[in-house]
């Protein structure tokens, strides 16, 4: 079912986990943009929120798989499965994550 998730804007170069029904979503503010991805590495299901943001990527803290925040596409050889991404809109001091 389509729905929106609203939250306050994040400080630059930070990230926050939000839970929506059975979805755990990681919202990131990096490089001047907000992104929302599922907080789950597609390699071995590890939560991504302890990973490091850099250059529009997040590194999984377990084995280091990097995912591009914009597309969800992985780098490297450990997985070929993209992480799920969600559209994000920024309005004034709020950000809206479109979940469908």
């Amino acid at each position, binding site marked *: 079912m389509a729905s929106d998730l609203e939250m306050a804007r994040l400080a630059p170069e930070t990230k926050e986990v939000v839970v929506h029904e059975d979805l755990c979503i990681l919202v990131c503010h990096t490089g001047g943009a907000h992104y929302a991805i599922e907080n789950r590495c597609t390699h071995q299901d590890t939560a991504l929120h302890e990973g*490091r943001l*850099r*250059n529009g990527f997040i*590194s999984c*803290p*377990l084995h*280091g798989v*990097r995912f591009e925040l914009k597309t969800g596409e992985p780098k490297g050889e*450990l997985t070929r499965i993209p992480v799920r991404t969600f559209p994000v809109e920024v309005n004034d001091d709020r950000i809206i994550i479109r979940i469908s």
Partner: protein
Amino acid sequence: MSETMKPGKARAPGHTYQEAIVKDASPPPEAFLDYSYEFLGDQDIPYSHYTSREYADREMEKMWPHVWQMACREEHIAEPGDYQVYDIGHLSAIVTRTDSMQIKAYVNACMHRGTALKSPGDNGYCQTFRCPFHGWIYSLDGELLEVPENWDFPHVTAETHSLREILVDTWAGFVFVNFDREAESLQDFLGVLPEHFKGFDIADRHIETHVCKRLPVNWKAAEEAFMEAYHVKETHAGGREFSEPVTTYDVYPKNVNRFIHTVGSVNPRMPVPPTEQELMDAMWGKRGANEGGCPEVPEGATARDVYADIVKKKLSEQYGLDFSHYSTAQTLDSIEYFLFPNFFIFPGLSLPMAYRFRPDPNDPDYSYFDLYFLRPHDPASRPPPPPEPMMLDVKDSYTAAEGLGFLGAVYDQDTDNMAAQTRGFKACAKGGQTLGNYQEVRIRHLHQRVADYVGE
């Protein structure tokens, strides 16, 4: 035979590079005035050194594991846990920053059953190095921390099964590795480079652009395309006369050579020398229409000095830094130093590139070319993180890469000859390539250094 006819003594008509730059208003660095050419022979270079699988295997066995190679910039591994993988042939190194901010490098293979811990060319962050196969865990210092089900491994300890360290050292913000634990120091390997680079601030630059292209030619021939300015007239200027820059070629022991060529000086081969204003117009034309009208060169001044001052002012505004200490030659000229076996760096202000070449481990007819543009930043500020490299395949154009500007088309011209060169290596009945004694001495230097390791 007269003195001037001895091999290697001949020079292009007119003045030398060194004679040209002493006329600049600002004195060039002493190193720029140095002549260090040496005649290294005039025998053909066998084409088999490019095409032979056996020769490539010897390079991989006898040379690459024993030479210092640029693995990354320090900003690639700015914080503890950052890592960068450097691959050369079948060898692979993880370069990382430890919790105590030390830079370390390890063989990229688990000490259990050898699985590579990180993917080829990858970079990223981790708290520990954890093998994705069975989960053996190593600290950032390389120490074996955990073996799952260790009851089965009484013969395994941190002393015997920690990650194998690789030599690592830094120069000018670059991180170098050497897979040979007994190798000479990086400082010794660098030779004259630190002395020649004293007037530059390479450590305070950062990677603004990084493009990695697969090239259809052996790694040595790929490097050679950038080692001489002899090709400029035909490859870049459509054969137009008098387009050769005035260039010095110098060779230093053991691992360094260079060329430096002027930008915006009178080419002595022109039948009618251009005026300083005509030289200024020619340089200004490359800046594009949005730069306004071409400035006038005052009486008694040279186009080079006027243009260098404009470049310094513009870059000062762009980067918020003072470049007034850079001489005209440091600002404008194409200054290319080579560190054997695979690293080039341009310390100049307006052409701030670095190159790295690596063989394709599976095919001697292919190689990889990392092209970096380095830009200055305030030494008191932290450099921005390096960009993700843009990967180009053989048939992709450099003009598709962001950040190269008009040089994208120039790099296409440089690399578009390479497939034809590989075909010619195999078709040519002569058996080897013939080199100019002076303008192509750097190529011969490269081959002689390779031969020092692998034999003829």
